[in-house]
Structure formats: C-alpha cells, structure tokens
C-alpha cells in the first residue's frame, strides 16, 4: 500500500479524534480532506514530509484561531506517532508553519530533541563504561596489555625475583603474582605479602570506579535534570501538551431537564418579524391603489432568526455558578439558538471580550450595542449588580442597557427571597426570572408573546446564609475563623444545603482542588439516603453560590473539617467516585462531558521522585502548586492522607503513559505486552499510532541497573580477594567516605557571585565593582557575619563587628554549605516555606548596620548607593498623596477605636488596613507561632518587609526564623485579588470624579476605608497622569506611589528578561507571584527579587514610617484622640535585636 493511501485510510481516525476534541467537523470535512489528498497526489504536489500537510489540512478542519494553533501540534504528533521514521520537526520548519505572535511549538520540539540527545549520550556513556569495566574485570590493565603485545617485561615481573619468572613477550600477571612483594613496599615482610595484590587491585578498582563514578554522577545529574523538567512541565507555561480532554457520559444530561430545555430552545429559535430595508411591492401597489394612485410605500417585513447576547457574572475562572450558566446556555446553543456569551466580573459595564480578537480592552455597553443592536439581552447575575446600594434603585448607568428593548435578568436568588432589587429592575423594564432551565423556558415563551406560561413550583430552598452572603471573601482566607464562628458556619451550611447537599460539599473537600468537573461528577455518583443522585439542579445551584465554589478555592481548615464530617461510607463513596472518575475518563467514548486531566509523567521510582521533588520544591515560585502543602503531600506522600486522593496505579499507568487517553478498543489492542516490548518497535503499533515510549527513562534505568550489578560484582570480588589479607588499605577502602554535604544551602547566584567577590576583594578597593555590587557586598558580608553568629561551620571570629577577610566567603566560612540556611534550604515537608528571596538580615536603621560593613563599601541605609536614593515626590502629585496619607491615618484611627489594629509592626501595615479593614497580623503570628515547626508564619508582604527593616515589635518573634510572606495559595492571592479589585474600581471612580457614597449600614471603619480608597485612587491617578507610573504590575503598586511618589519598576523589570535579576518592592514582588505581573518575557522566580534592606528597602520603610506616623499624629491631634491606647499603637519601639 502506498504511503498516501495509508495516510488517506488512517486520516478519518485522526478526524474522529479531532471531532471528539470539540472540532466542528462534519461529513463535509471528511470528504474535503480526502479530496484534498487525492487532488494533491494527482498533481504530484504531495509534500515529501507528511507533516507539511498540517497547513494544508488545517484550513479544512479548523474553524477558530485556537484550533488552528493546536492543529499543527496534534497533526505533527499523529504523523510522527504513526510513522517512526519521521524525525522531529526542526525549529526552522516549525517557524515556517507558525510565524505568528506566541507560537510555542518550537519549545516542545526542542524538548523532544533534547531528550534524544540525552538518550544518545547515555547510551554512549554506558557502552564506554562497559568496555572499561570489562577490561578491568578480565584482569588486563592497559599496562599488561602493552607488555603482552610489545614483549616488554612488566615491572612487577622483573622486580619480583622470587621464583616467579615472567616470560618476556607474554607478560601479564599470573595469579601467584598477586602475592609478590614490591621493592619499594614499605612493608616487605611475609605477613604483608598480599599488599601488592591489594595495591594492584586498588589501581584496578580506581580504574573501574573512575568511569563508574563519572558515569554515575553524569547519569544522576541527567536523571535529576530530566526529572526536574518533568515536574516543572506538569502545570505551568506550555501546559497545552500536558492537558488531555476526556469525555464522561451521563453528567451533562443530569444538570438540566432535557425536555424543558428543548422547549426553551425551540421558543428561543422561533423567528421574529423585523422590518426590511426594501419595499414590499405587492403591499405598496395595494396601498397605492387604495389611495387613488398616490404612491404609498410599504416596507417589507421579514422574519429573522433572533440572536441573544448573554452576559454571565463570573467571579473567577473556577466560578461554579458561572460555569453552571455557561452549561445552560451551551445546551440551548447546541440546539441551534444563536448566542454570543460574554462574562463580566461584578460590573456588567466591562465584559471580557471572549469572542473575537480585536483587542483586549473590556467591552462597554456601547460596544455591545453596536455589535449586537438587534439581539435580545439576557444577564445571568444577582440583581444587586444593577442596583445602587444607596438608593436601592437601578444604578444610573443601568440605563445603558435600555438599548436592548428585550432584556432579561436571570438571577440565582430563588424567587421566594426576591426583594426590592428585583422589583426595581422589573419596574425598569427588565424581565426578572430565576436562573434555571424553567426560568429560561418561561422567558422564551414571554419573548414570543406567550405570557401564559408560569414558573412551576420551585423546590423548597433556603436562603444563602447571611454570614456567607455578606462577606464571602472572608471565608476563603487561609486563617480559620474563631471557634464559635466556625461552628456557626458549619451549622449554617448544614441548614442551607440540607443533608445531601452538605455531604456533597464535604465530598468536594476531599479533592485538593475545587474543580467543576470533579464537583459535578461527585454529585452524579454519590447518592442520598433515598438512593437518588445528589446531582440535582437545586442542589447544584445552592452549592455553586457558596464562596468557595465561586472563587474556586477552599482553605485547608475547612477542607479538614469537612473531610472529617464525612461518614465512613460517604468518604468511601467519595474516594470511589474519584477513582471512578479517572476510570470512566479512561474508558469513555466520544460523547459526554469533557473533563480536563493533567497528564502524568512516567515515574522512575518513588524514591527518586520524592528526592527530585524535594530538590525542586524550594526553588519554585510561591504560586507554584509544588509549594502548596496539600498539593505537595498529594504529590510526594507514598500513601493517601486525609486531604489527598491517590490515583490508582493501574489507572495512572494505563491512562498517562500513552501520551493521551485511549479509547476502549485501543486499550484492548494495546495489550500489556507493549509495555515490556522495545520502545522502537512499539512506536506506531497502537491503533492510533500515538504511543510514545519513555525512551530516556528506560535507557537510564537500564544503565543504572547495569551499574549497580557491575559495582556489586566488583565489590564482591574485591572483598573476596581481600578477605584474610586484612591490610590497613583494604580496611580503609571499605570505610565509607563521608558524603559531601548536600548543596541545599546554596544562595541565589547573584549573591553567590558577590560572596566570591568578597573573598577576593574584601580588603582592597576594587574599582571594577559597581555601586550596586558594593552594596550587595555589604549585604553579603552582613550575611557572612550572620552565618558566623549562627555557628554554621568554622566561621572566622569577630565577624559581628569587624569581618575578617574570609568571613562570609566560600573559603573562609566553609563554602556553600556554611552559608546561612535561609537562602535555599528545603523546608520540612508540610511546613511553611520560605519566600524565593527574602531580604537578608534585619537591619537596625541607624545603629548596628554600618559596623558590619567593610571600609571600602559605602555605608548601608538610605544613602548606601545611588540605587538606594529616593527621589523627591513629584510636586504635582504630592498634594494628592498627602491627602491619601491623611485618609489612611484617619482609617487607622477609626480602626484602632474599633479594636481592629493589632499589628506586629509599628507603624501598622497600610495595605492590610486598606484591603481588609483591619491589621491583625500580631494575633495571627502569636497564634500560629506555637503550632508550626519550624515556627514560620505567613504575613502580608508589607509586614514582612517591615520585620526585615527593623519595624517589627512583637516580642518573641524573630524575622529570620518566624516571618514569611504568606503563600499565594494560602491567602496572598486573595489578598492581591482584592487589592486589584478595590484599586481598579476606586481608580475608575476617581477618574470619573465620583466620590463613593457611604452605605447606610456602614460603620465608621468602612466609611473611612471607602474614603481612604478614594483618596489613594486619586493619588494613583495623579501619579499616572503625571507620567510617574511605569510599573511592571497592573494595577500599580500603591505603596510605591504613596512613599516614593512614583512607581517606576517597569523599565528595570523589562530589562531583566533572564539576564539580570531585578530588585523590587515587596508589593511589586508579591504582585508578580499572584498573577499581576504584566511585562512579557519575565519569569518572576527567575528575574525578580525583593529589594534588600541595604539596597533601598530600609530607606523605603523609613520613609513609610515617617509619613504614616506624622499623619497619624496629625489626625490624632486634630481629633483630640491622644489616649494612651492610641499612643501605644504607634509609639516607635526600639528595633528588636536578632
């Protein structure tokens, strides 16, 4: 069979796969693809390399830009899988078929090529190692072989002289030679006659062990490197190749009543009359005739398919409520309703431009009305998004939506609990209905003029508990609420969800991630007491409204509690359902709900995996899942724990090793023997031809086994020969050599380089050093001094006040292993982990710092170097900033009166009070510090920086030992999300000049908080308008603007790009690790570090304290609030000595 015939024959299989992956492929595409191949063949235009067909077949089967991008990769993989003789695509070829912005196929292919190189290297190394090993094993050293060939007597033979003659020309060592003493042997007595043999064997052993060691080291490094790449490739960046879509039957069907939706879709599709632009000839003639010939034009009427513009409120990408509505809309769309679906986050005036690529700006109502002038508008959201909280009436801007005469609001609030908001919207011309399939069906009827259809009686539901509705973000905080609140929460949840819904919620807590697919599947598989599935529309609607399901995250304190609430049968059912989820995914056919499952990598051994994981984890950025405790234990723990779910090994092996999930028929054909067959023969033998063997893992494993066997045999032989000899040398050989200390304490490279420079230049003034390097040297010497103080290794004495030339250097302080442990030590599993690059030792603002600096280095502090100088605040924005500080001070005073300021730093943190309305980190620190081992506590970035610049004030807390920035998954992300939300909305208001009106129910703190945000936003706007904001994060850093009068980290960050690390403020640093970095090409973990105290952070915090304290004092003086308590809050304390 010709190759083209085979390709044409197998192409439908490939198109089947595309179709199951969601491509819009009909019979036309099957025919067109075949026609295309035949036409090309008939013209002799078929490319030699079948992968070149990707750009020819792609236009036939792809219908979206995303499909077009993905198709190339899919097709290339398919071609390479079905025909192993096809090599990898070169980068140039990839460029040919890509070419646009953001093409990333080159990286994947480069990765594949790298694996091939590594595999080849391992094979060569293994062969070389085998040759050397065999030569030693057979007792033929190079010397003896030379003697044998050249007829030169061996040294041993000529020197023996004790009845053991060596025949010239034959050479070689006879067995008895092993006991012959040597002339220069220090001990030539009979009792030590075996030493010559030992020495000889030692030389052989060295010969054998040298390549063994080299190879072993190289193999280990390669293995480690590959392992690292695999772990790192699990989630971030080029994750497209690691995410596989599989299908599960029977879930979507349970979400909504099919009959109701079909009826709704039918009514929504019903064509409606519309006026045409041309004349209705007959009607015009008729009317003109009736009017005695006077021309009376009549416009034609036409019936047109109605279009729907659907806006869905989505709080996060994992928002279950939005996903529920997406599914609802998707099902009617699948039945032919013309829908354009967009999302917004709390404010419908700014919709995500999900459809189209005309730019990334949010779509305003006027944009939408221009694009969809004749559409019907349906909004899925709570009525409150349109309601002014002050007046209780529709907000003034809600009139913008009057551009759509037919508009409806489908609200998650059950009709029984509707209040003034829904009624006000009804009065304003909105059709308000419940966001259910029944509600949509009633809406469809009403749009067609049939007002008779009424809502069916809704099942009895409960109102969302006030404690969850009022402040939903409070419940995703990583810090647990107080015990009474916690109990109230649990009781409220039980009442709100009922027994079945609560069991479902608890089951969702078992899995480490709040994931729509998992939630729905668990509901479909778990049963209530009556034996009915828990997945029912009313249950799911109630569950989806909970803050954890809207925000897509559930804190561990709640997960642990809910998991504990599961009865044994329920827990077993939940775990069983999760196992079934993977099995079902594995065996599912083409139809059903799509689930996305991360592709696992073949594991080469639990021990190695854990080792690699342990090495990789500390180097990961804060937001990496590898640093998340629950996920970490999920990944590394050998047995499933309470908060983890183990993927059954058989499922994992069958599911993931193939490179993609297989269909049942292919599973059968791909028998178990395939896993043991040589990889080369296995490639392409599967039905889909897409199985890729982990070649490198097998080569590496074979090499290691070979090495282990060889080494064991060698050692066994050696010990047998040496038994009874008892020489000191032999004894020493068996003594284990002390292993080199693991390189776990290595500091960042830049610091390491500087430490080296310190060693070389500690006493001399090196003109080659830049001011910044000198400042870093000062920092490094401080670190070295700290290392000496902390008794790490043999540090030089006197480093505290007068560093010796070697203090802090690799040589003087015992090398890398003796550097301070905080720079990269792997923390204990399950504990809080250090930030990527914490600032160095806490610096006392004015007293102790300079004494640690060498004479050739500028003194630390605000004037340590040019880089640390703070520019004066821009005059044009100074007034606004001053107003902002005043408003912040007023907020602090109000919060102090309400008892909400209990901070571990003085003055207290600005961002915390702005974002949370409180600053209570001291209580958190004191409560957590006794629980954790090592006792580390996560705090906000501002508090963290303050502790390292001498503004910590809580006794018993040490910055280095105890204080860390809270992890993104433990609250930092939410903190910065809230910051972004508040800042953006405030800036929006400030730009419009709309001062927020106080809500009737707001207390004094909330009013002050709103006022402070408005003032801060005005300062930010002023700085932006003055061109002083050029930052790498969006929205910009508040503190930088308030303290420095500007935010200008953008250019420096943009210049980093992997070449040089950039030091930024704590707020910018943390924003990058919570997804608010915006400079392309920057990898936060690689390129960014938090500014060191001596490199500007100290001056930054000094100025912060000066500004805040002066404004606090002014506000207190004005308010007459000079009580002792207030004074205590801001009384500057002496920086604590570390």
């Amino acid at each position: 069979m010709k190759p083209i015939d085979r390709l044409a024959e197998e192409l439908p299989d490939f198109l089947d796969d595309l179709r199951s992956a969601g491509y819009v492929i009909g019979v036309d595409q099957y025919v067109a693809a075949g026609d295309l191949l035949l036409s090309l063949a008939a013209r002799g235009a078929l490319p030699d390399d079948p992968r070149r067909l990707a750009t020819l077949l792609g236009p036939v089967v792809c219908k979206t830009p995303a499909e077009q991008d993905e198709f190339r990769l899919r097709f290339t993989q398919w071609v390479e899988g079905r025909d192993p003789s096809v090599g990898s695509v070169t980068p140039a070829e990839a460029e040919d078929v890509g070419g646009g912005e953001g093409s990333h196929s080159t990286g994947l292919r480069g990765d594949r090529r790298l694996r091939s190189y590594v595999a080849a290297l391992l094979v060569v190394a293994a062969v070389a190692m085998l040759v050397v090993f065999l030569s030693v094993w057979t007792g033929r050293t190079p010397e003896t072989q030379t003697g044998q060939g050249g007829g030169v007597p061996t040294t041993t033979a000529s020197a023996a002289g004790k009845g053991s003659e060596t025949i010239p020309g034959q050479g070689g060592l006879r067995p008895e030679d092993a006991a012959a003493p040597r002339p220069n042997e220090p001990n030539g007595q009979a009792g030590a006659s075996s030493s010559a043999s030992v020495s000889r064997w030692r030389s052989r052993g060295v010969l054998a062990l040298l390549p063994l060691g080299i190879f072993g080291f190289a193999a280990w490094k390669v293995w480690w490197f590959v392992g690292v790449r695999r772990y790192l490739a699990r989630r971030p960046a080029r994750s497209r190749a690691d995410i596989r879509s599989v299908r599960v039957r029977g879930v979507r069907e349970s979400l909504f009543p099919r009959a109701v939706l079909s009826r709704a879709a039918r009514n929504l599709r019903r064509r409606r009359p519309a006026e045409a632009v041309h004349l209705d000839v007959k009607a015009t003639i008729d009317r003109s005739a009736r009017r005695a010939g006077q021309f009376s034009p009549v416009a034609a009427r036409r019936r047109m398919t109605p279009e729907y513009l659907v806006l869905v409120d989505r709080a996060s990408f994992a928002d279950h409520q939005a996903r529920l509505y997406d599914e609802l809309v998707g099902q009617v769309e699948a039945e032919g309703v013309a829908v354009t679906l967009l999302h917004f986050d709390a404010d419908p005036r700014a919709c995500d431009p999900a459809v189209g690529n005309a730019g990334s700006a949010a779509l305003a109502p006027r944009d939408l009305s221009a694009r969809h002038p004749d559409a019907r508008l349906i909004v899925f959201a709570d009525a409150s998004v349109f309601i002014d909280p002050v007046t209780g009436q529709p907000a003034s801007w809600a009139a913008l939506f009057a551009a759509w005469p037919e508009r409806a609001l489908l609200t998650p609030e059950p009709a029984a609990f509707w209040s003034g908001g829904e009624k006000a919207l009804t009065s304003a011309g909105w059709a308000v209905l419940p966001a259910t399939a029944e509600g949509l069906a009633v809406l469809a009827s009403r749009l067609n003029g049939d007002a008779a259809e009424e809502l069916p009686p809704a099942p009895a539901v409960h109102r969302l508990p006030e404690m969850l509705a009022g402040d939903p973000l409070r419940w995703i905080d990583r810090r647990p609420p107080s015990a009474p609140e916690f109990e109230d929460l649990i009781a409220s949840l039980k009442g709100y969800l009922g027994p079945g819904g609560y069991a479902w919620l608890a089951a969702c807590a078992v899995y480490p991630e709040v994931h729509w697919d998992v939630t729905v599947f668990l509901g479909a598989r778990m049963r209530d007491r009556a034996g009915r599935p828990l997945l029912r529309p009313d249950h799911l609607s109630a569950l989806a409204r909970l803050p954890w399901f809207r925000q897509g995250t559930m804190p561990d304190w709640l997960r642990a509690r809910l998991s504990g609430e599961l009865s044994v049968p329920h827990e077993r059912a939940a775990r069983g359902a999760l196992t079934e989820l993977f099995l079902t995914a594995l065996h599912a056919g083409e139809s059903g709900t799509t689930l996305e499952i991360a592709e696992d990598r073949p594991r080469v051994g639990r021990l190695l995996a854990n080792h690699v994981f342990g090495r990789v984890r500390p180097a990961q950025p804060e937001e990496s899942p590898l640093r998340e405790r629950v996920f970490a234990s999920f990944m590394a723990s050998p047995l499933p724990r309470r908060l983890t779910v183990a993927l059954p090994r058989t499922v994992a092996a069958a599911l993931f090793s193939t490179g993609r999930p297989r269909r049942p028929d292919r599973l059968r054909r791909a028998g178990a023997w395939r896993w043991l067959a040589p990889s080369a023969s296995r490639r392409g033998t599967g039905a889909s031809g897409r199985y890729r063997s982990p070649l490198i893992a097998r080569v590496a494993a074979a090499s290691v086994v070979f090495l282990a066997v060889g080494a064991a045999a060698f050692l066994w032989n050696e010990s047998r020969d040496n038994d009874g000899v008892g020489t000191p040398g032999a004894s020493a050989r068996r003594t284990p050599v002390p292993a080199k200390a693991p390189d776990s304490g290595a500091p960042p490279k830049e610091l390491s380089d500087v430490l080296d420079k310190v060693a070389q230049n500690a006493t001399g003034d090196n003109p080659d050093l830049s001011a910044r390097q000198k400042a870093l040297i000062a920092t490094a010497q401080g670190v070295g001094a700290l290392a000496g103080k902390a008794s790490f290794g043999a540090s030089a004495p006197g480093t505290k006040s007068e560093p010796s030339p070697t203090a802090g250097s690799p040589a003087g302080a015992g090398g890398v292993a003796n550097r301070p442990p905080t720079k990269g030590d792997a923390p204990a599993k399950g504990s809080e982990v250090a930030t990527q690059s914490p600032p160095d030792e806490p610096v006392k603002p004015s007293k102790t710092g300079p004494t640690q600096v060498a004479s050739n280095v500028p003194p630390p502090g605000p004037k340590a170097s040019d880089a640390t100088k703070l520019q004066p605040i821009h005059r044009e924005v100074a007034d606004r900033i001053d107003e902002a500080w005043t408003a912040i001070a007023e907020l602090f005073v109000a919060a102090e009166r309400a008892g909400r300021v209990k901070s571990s730093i003085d003055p207290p943190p600005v961002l915390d009070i702005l974002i949370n309305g409180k600053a209570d980190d001291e209580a958190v620190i004191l409560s957590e510090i006794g629980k954790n081992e090592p006792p580390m506590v996560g705090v906000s970035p501002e508090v963290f920086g303050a502790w390292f610049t001498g503004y910590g004030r809580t006794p018993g807390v040490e910055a280095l030992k105890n204080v860390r920035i809270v992890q993104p998954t433990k609250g930092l992300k939410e903190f910065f999300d809230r910051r972004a939300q508040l800042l953006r909305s405030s800036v929006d208001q400030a730009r419009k000049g709309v001062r927020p009106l106080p809500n009737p129910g707001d207390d004094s703190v909330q009013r002050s908080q709103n006022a402070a945000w408005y003032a801060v936003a005005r300062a930010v706007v002023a700085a932006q308008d003055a061109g002083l904001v050029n930052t790498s994060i969006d929205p910009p850093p508040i503190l930088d603007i308030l303290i420095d009068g500007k935010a200008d980290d953008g250019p420096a960050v943009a210049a980093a790009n992997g070449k040089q690390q950039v030091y930024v403020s704590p707020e910018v640093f943390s924003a990058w690790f919570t997804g608010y970095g915006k400079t392309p090409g920057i990898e936060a973990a690689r390129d960014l570090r938090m500014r060191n105290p001596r490199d500007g952070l100290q001056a930054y915090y000094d100025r912060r304290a000066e500004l805040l304290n002066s404004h606090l004092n002014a506000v207190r003086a004005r308010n007459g609030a000079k009580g002792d308590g207030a004074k205590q809050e801001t009384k500057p304390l002496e920086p604590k000595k570390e």
Partner: protein
Amino acid sequence: MPYPFYTGAPGAQAAARPADLPVSRRAEQTRPDRYLADAGLVDAVNVALLLGQPLLLTGEPGTGKTQLASSLAWELGLGDPLRFETKSTSTAGDLFYTYDSLARFHAAQTGVLGKGTEFITFNALGRAILRANALSAVAGLLPAGHVHDGPRRSVVLIDEVDKAPRDFANDLLNEVEGMFFRIPELGNVRVEADPSMQPIVVVTSNSEKSLPDAFLRRCIYYHIPFPDRDRLAEVIAARLGKFSGKGQAFLDDALDLFYRLRDAATGLRKRPATAEVLGWVAALRELYPGVDNPLAGRDDVARRSVSVLVKTVEDREVALAAWDRWRKERGR
C-alpha cells in the same frame, strides 16, 4: 509644494492655482504585487482553490485580510476583486443584485416602463456569476451600460461578514455553493455560473460575532496571526520598499515603539495593527525627508504622527504618554 501644505492661519493667501500635492502613498502600500502572505495563508488559499470552496479569513483588523483578495486576483490575472461590503441590514439577496422599486414605481406612474432590467444593479457575486457566462447567455439580463467582459473567473470579496445578522451567513450557504441566483422581478429567471468559471469567494470576519457551524463547515478557514517582529519588518520592506535614506536603527526603533504601543499593558482600547504601522512609517518618511532616524532626538514626532497609529481621543493620550516613556527609556 513645501510642507505643511495647509497652515490654517488667518490671513493665509489662497493659491492661485490648484496645489501640487504629493501622490497618495496609500495606493502604493496597497499594491497587490507587494502583498506578502505567510506560508499558512498561502496553503489555505491553494486548498480553497483546489477544493473550490470559499475561503474564510479572520484576524485582527489591519492584518491584510482584505488585501489578500486583491493579491489573489492580481496573481491569478483576474483583475480587481469584486467587493461586497456587508452591513448590519444586509441580506443574502443583496450579494447578487438590488432592485430599485421606487424607480420602478415612478416609471409605472409615468408610463415609461421598459423591460425591467434598468431597475436592477448587480452586486459583487451577481456580477461574478454573470461574468462567468458568455455575453449571449446573459445579454437579456444586463441593464443598460453594464459592461460584460466574460466569460471569465472573478474573485469576490465578502468583507466583514460578521456585521450582518446571523441569517445572512445561513442564507449564503446554498447560493455560494451552487453559484446561482434567481431574479423574481424578471420572471424568476435563474442565473448560474459556468462550472469552469465559478468565482473564487473570499470571506472576511473580524470575529465580533460567532458564525453558524453550518457556514463554517462549508468554508476553508484561516486565521491570519499578527506577525512577529521579524516578519513585520519583512512586510514593511515589501510594502514600502527599502528604506532609502533611513537606516536599520529607524526600523528597529519604529518596531520597538510600535510593539510597545500594541502591548496590552499600554492600555490602548484599539491597538494599532499592520495597516497602521505601514501608514505610520510612510508618514514619518514623508514628514522627515532626509532624516536617518526621525524617532531620535525630536520632540515633535509623537504629536505629528501619533494620529496615524491611534484612532480615538482616549487612545491618543495614552499613546503619547507611552511614547514619552519610551523616549526616556531609550534615551531618544
């Protein structure tokens, strides 16, 4: 005539004779022989020609979707493409012809009714189908003054199909596939293209609205990606010719600044695309003749040329601020 051509100053003297203005560079930029298609687009066009299916192009505005039709028609020797500008009120019938009912009524009332063809205006696809036939086959349908140069093929461009109601794309299916239409006003006569001369149809969309699946299935699809920096430099060179008198530093600076403005972080509501950068570079060349790098050391460049890159008042302020920051960073 020296620059500036127009001063807007009070008391300016009116020219005694029409001013000698420069020839528009626009025509030069859009010359079809200077169009540079990427490899994927070339393949997509060839597949569409091979299978005889419409080619649907998407991509950011300004990436050359419309230009492709001109380039294709030029390279195949089919003259200028026949273009249909889709409107929000367009119907599928508008693709073929429009009938002036008012004129017909007027004619009926004045008693000068002819054979009826004088009220018909054939549009892009209708003209292409007529052109695919010999004159003798369609002579009875042609209005007075209609020049028929068939039989031959044509390239038909249906621009921005997503502007029209959803029914437009659905109604288009059968007509485009069958390449025929009927004229009820002329006795429901059926006009069909000779199969060997069927028009080549290129449809463009800005993806503002999704298109029906059935329509998508009938089309060959290609999304023109926004070119990366190197490719954009090639496009500029191809469209504008070599930079006589301008060095590589100018092109580097221009592209650097352009991608800065395009960056989402800059915050422009309407990001400039290929067409804008072409116009901008051409404008700089005209505004600063003989200057190697107009972007270096001049304060007025931004004010004078930013309007070529951005189109709204809000974007202008944002772009000027970003431009200023760029100058400071680069020391320009």
